[in-house]
């Protein structure tokens, strides 16, 4: 599952302080790179000869405007080792909602009769960061779900994963097929080689409309307003002739702010 997510680094506010969505670009969500890398690693180690499919549901519209960014993100997956890509692009499904994304992913899996051994996703995407699509897909497909995996292996036809939760690390074993969400710590994604990048454009890509799919749920949540978080910092640079003088000026500033007290 690959998501072209709003790139938070391209954020800009309107004069009213709202997020200027038109100005922002999309990029492949960071942690999805780890998911592709892990898919390639597992395929080479345990599922030789298997294909790696990617499914992308364009959550941000309008399709005309976003198409280029969406294709770039998908292309990146193909260059990293995905063999065949499915892209659901439809203005009736944007702005998306995880309810829509998950139902569209499941609809693609059913329509194209994909029979995955493993479904991999990043633990969350950099725009919404709710981390819920993988769990939804697992439940809809009736598959076991292993979330926040920071280590993944296959033993005797079952997966063994280390789940990274707040207070402990949990080692779990689940039957295959299963859905797994991975954390950034699971691997270090390798950048694709030039040959891989060139090969990527020749791999099969299917663009699908909502009307081609069955059971896609329309978005439910409504984004009423998105306001740029303006943390106003003073941005004062402190300089002195010597390091001692700089240190003293900094200490004076902290005293004036009331965060420390001196004799």
């Amino acid at each position, binding site marked *: 599952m690959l998501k072209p997510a*709003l790139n*938070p680094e391209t*954020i800009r506010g309107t004069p009213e302080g709202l*997020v200027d969505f038109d100005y922002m670009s999309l990029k492949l969500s960071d942690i999805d790179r780890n998911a592709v890398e892990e898919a390639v690693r597992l395929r080479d180690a345990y599922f030789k000869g298997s294909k790696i499919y990617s499914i992308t549901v364009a959550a941000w519209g309008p399709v005309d405007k976003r198409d280029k960014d969406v294709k770039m993100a998908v292309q990146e997956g193909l260059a990293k080792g995905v063999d065949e890509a499915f892209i659901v692009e439809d203005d009736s499904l944007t702005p998306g*909602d*995880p*309810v829509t994304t*998950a*139902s569209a992913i499941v609809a693609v899996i059913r329509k194209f009769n994909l029979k995955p051994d493993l479904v991999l996703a990043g633990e969350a995407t950099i*725009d*919404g*960061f*709710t*981390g*819920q*699509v993988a*769990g*939804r897909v*697992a*439940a809809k497909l009736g598959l076991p*779900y292993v979330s926040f995996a920071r280590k993944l292996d296959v033993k005797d036809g079952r997966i063994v994963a280390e789940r*990274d*939760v*707040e*207070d*402990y*690390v*949990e*080692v*779990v*074993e*689940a*039957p295959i097929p299963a859905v797994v969400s991975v954390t950034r710590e699971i691997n270090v994604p390798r950048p694709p080689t030039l040959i891989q990048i060139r090969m990527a454009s020749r791999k099969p890509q299917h663009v699908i409309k909502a009307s081609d799919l069955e059971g896609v749920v329309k978005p439910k*949540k*409504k984004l*009423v307003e*998105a*306001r*740029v978080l303006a*943390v106003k*910092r*003073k*941005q*004062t*640079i*402190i*300089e002195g002739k010597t*390091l*001692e003088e*700089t*240190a*003293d000026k900094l*200490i004076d*500033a*902290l005293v004036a702010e009331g*965060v*420390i*007290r*001196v*004799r």
Partner: protein
Amino acid sequence: MAMTSLVVAQREDDVAEALTIARQVGEPHILVFGQVDPSPLLDYGHPVHHLRSDDTESLFLALRSLYESLKPSIILAPTTKNLKDVLSRVAGLYDLPLATEVYDVKVSGSSASYRRGFLSGRAIALEEAPLPAVLLLAPRKTPRAPKGGAKGTLETVQPPSPTVKVLERRPKERGGVNIEAAELIVSVGRGFRSKEDLKMAFELAEVLGAQVGCSRPIAADLKWLSEDHWVGLSGHKVAPKLYIAIGISGAPQHLAGITDAKLVVAINNDKSAPIFKNCDYGVVADLYQFVPVLTKRLKERLAK
């Protein structure tokens, strides 16, 4: 049929916060899980369902059957990784909207509105979701509901055995810090060239009475410090009155963790580092030279 709501949590403070919203929607039920004593929760006056296991699969199975029998209009829980896992599955099964880290929740008629961080902490979104919905609350942002009413009933839940087996649990290594509660934080990043050099930051922290935090690479990649020191979007969100970032460039994910800091000081030798656009006071200097001097001057000047 009267409307019901469902609260899922492990700790009493999380239950009490969720109940504040749950009571506005319908007759609350509480699902508490794990090896905890559920009896204090009976004082809130609502039915309590207790699941002794706390693995995600068992919790999902228990929730699914509870959802089927209660058909709640809202499910409320604290935002934790295991509850994200479990509730995303419940939401998927019934196509319910779900949001995490929400606060300022308002329920009116057939929908709920709330705010949450968006775009890696760079924006705040106001969203509206039709009921039934699943909301995972940001901790300590909702007032607690008072106890009251006749004592609630207690029922033990026993779901079928899970297909995903927990083989082992290892507690995470802890550095003994509670960075989220720290008033003063000295935080370290990649500007430090070795683990031994962090000693400089610890000395500064000791003089100030501060806790030591760090950026992602120090905890996650280099593992020089345990993860309880990690400040940022995937680490801990902090709210000290003073945050001193040393050798931290200021990646967006790190900045997202310090938006609630009252005052941010940056020490970095790269004057173009993004941290300087996101600090109150900046010192462009080699940390190896400046930090020992700052520590020395503080030692001499600080009030005991």
